[in-house]
């Protein structure tokens, strides 16, 4: 072991106990002795109490975990999480953990999709509409401001339903929605390039769809580095799509090693986990 560490951590230890004589050290501390009966020192060790209730709609994590299933169901319904509730034929809650997580996660999440659009500025909504090739549906007033905000939001929500059908159709005909990579590598090979071109064609033919590229890494190496590596993989796919001027419709995210396809510490799992996933919306 490193000599230095040994020295650092045990210089006093060795000098006192290798000779089995610690009286020298002791004499130093005898000065500290206070012979009176009163406490010679006081220490404030008051426990700081965990407070989190504000965050989670009036519930602390512990409180939520102690609620009955029926109480949880009631809260979930109140929070608009009804769709998530899974009951068995006897009406018992099947996914208690998931419901607790959803209640906690919902505390800060932005509302539903249309609420999310509703919270955006006119400029932001127009930007989204233009990115989705819906420029002709924007109506300006005489000052050049958005005149049909409500209709445009409705059209955007409607268009995402229409895109969904297109995306499903493409899923049935395309070979691949996942590209794989070598260890610590972001290179796009020829086969991968062909796959990306297929996706580029789909996007060009369907201007209303947007693409989310999710980069992933295998478990080897450190988590934060892998987060960066996963993003670089997705970015190199985006770079190819950029050649088709599709940059504006591509969103890149990375999950690093946090979301593996296969668990296990072996070459097979690692190969499957070093990937970029295509996800349209």
């Amino acid at each position, binding site marked *: 072991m490193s000599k230095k560490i040994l020295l650092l951590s045990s210089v006093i230890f060795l000098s006192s106990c290798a000779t089995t004589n610690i009286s020298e050290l002791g004499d130093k501390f005898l000065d500290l002795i206070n012979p009176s009966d009163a406490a010679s020192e006081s220490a404030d060790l008051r426990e700081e109490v965990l407070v989190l209730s504000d965050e989670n709609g009036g519930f602390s994590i512990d409180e939520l975990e102690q609620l009955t299933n029926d109480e949880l169901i009631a809260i979930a319904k109140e929070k608009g999480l009804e769709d998530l509730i899974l009951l068995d034929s006897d009406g018992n809650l099947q996914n208690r953990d998931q419901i607790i997580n959803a209640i906690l996660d919902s505390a*800060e999440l932005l509302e539903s999709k249309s609420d999310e659009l509703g919270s955006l500025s006119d400029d932001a909504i127009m930007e989204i509409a233009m990115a989705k090739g819906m420029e002709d549906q924007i109506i300006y007033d005489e000052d050049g401001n958005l005149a049909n905000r409500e209709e445009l939001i409705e059209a955007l929500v409607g268009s995402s339903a229409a895109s969904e059908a297109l995306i499903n159709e493409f899923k049935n005909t395309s070979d691949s929605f996942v590209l794989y990579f070598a260890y610590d590598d972001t290179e796009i090979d020829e086969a991968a390039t062909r796959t990306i071109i297929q996706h580029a064609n789909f996007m060009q033919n369907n201007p209303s769809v947007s693409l989310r590229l999710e980069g992933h890494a295998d478990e080897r190496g450190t988590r934060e580095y892998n987060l960066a590596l996963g993003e670089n993989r997705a970015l190199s796919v985006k770079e190819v799509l950029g050649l088709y001027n599709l940059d504006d419709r591509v969103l890149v995210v990375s*999950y690093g090693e946090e979301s593996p396809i296969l668990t296990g510490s072996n070459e097979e799992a690692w190969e499957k986990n070093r990937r970029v996933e295509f996800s349209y919306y």
Partner: protein
Amino acid sequence: MKHLKYFLLLCSLASFSANALLEVNIIKSKEVAFPIIIAPFEMIGEFDKPVDLAGIIRDNLNRSGQFDARSTDQLVNDSIDFEFFKELKKDAIVFGKIRQITANVYHGEIYVFDILTQKSLYKKKIEFTTGGLRRIAHALSDKIYYVLLGQKGSFDTRLSFVTVTENQSGGKTYKLQISDSDAFNVQTVVRSSYPILSPAWSKDQKRLAYVSFKNNRSEVFVIHPFLKTRTIKLPKFDGIASSPAWHPNGESIALTISKNGNKDIYLYNFKSKTLKRLTKNISIDTEANFSPNGKSLAFTSNRTGQVQVYIKNLKSGKISRATFEGSYNAKPVFSPNGKDLALIHRVGKDYRLALLDISSRDLTIMTQNKSDESPYFSPNGGMIIYSTNRDNKGILSIISLHNNQIVELMQKEGEVREPSWSNYSK
């Protein structure tokens, strides 16, 4: 490169129930530890449930690797049978009493004697204002450590970590948890269906920064676990944020931000709400960590094509490479004296905890594991906590830098990972 020689002995497998979620596994080294006796404490007052105060202290001291602390059947008070303990080859004896005065106030007395010279090394009466006996045990452990070794202990401190369990319905539950330094008194601070990473304590121990994917991308949040305030989400930077690292002054935090895809390290100031760029390179720069004096910043970068550790002098702006052995060195953290870095070093196909002497560049590999991650020093520099795998399951490991003794902490179900050690409480 120097490899460690191991003489490991699987010593005990103790499993705790009740208020600890983690089981403990000690792999002892044969190197000498200080043989001492810690006699059961006399407890005066009405206690809800019996607390083995001396037992908590013994476990603390033994975990440090510096001590071989045992109990005794002998009743120890003012008269000590020194010859008896000398026969047992013990060097020192500790005993004491705790008297409850009010619900939150206790008076403690503690005595430490050198068995060979029969001299008193320390005696003290201390008034504790507290919510729990465990805190008293940790504070007393720090005192005993200081009396016998002349160094600060790391016992009255906290850990943070992330646990991951599978749900009945197939998904996962991620919990950001905090505990005492002995992994008891576990409390959940954040719970989510989405991954949580990189929890980091601010130096004053009042704030925890962490990365959450709850909005489907990595973002940095700051939580005050002991104050009734909202979680702070750092402003939406133009790019993905990750890898938070507190500046020791607590006023700012280093982050990795991916602007236009280029991952560099930035410093976010909470007061001025401004962002200052600390690295500027087309490659990946991430995993920042400040030196204890705040004057330099260690980080991981693949700027040469290999993953290596660099240190930036924040005054001169000069960046120099710190690691030269091997093709992968990452996730550096400074030791409390600023002289060493703990980091993850690749050996063949394995990723192992290693210790780098910054000035001599001497690298020491500390384990024989396959996938160590996330090292962090105890505040006295005597131990490193890190995560690793046992039987395909994530666990935490604490290694003593005195004798390489390893203590393993695990969950009965699920994984535990991403450990971080707080500074001293006050």
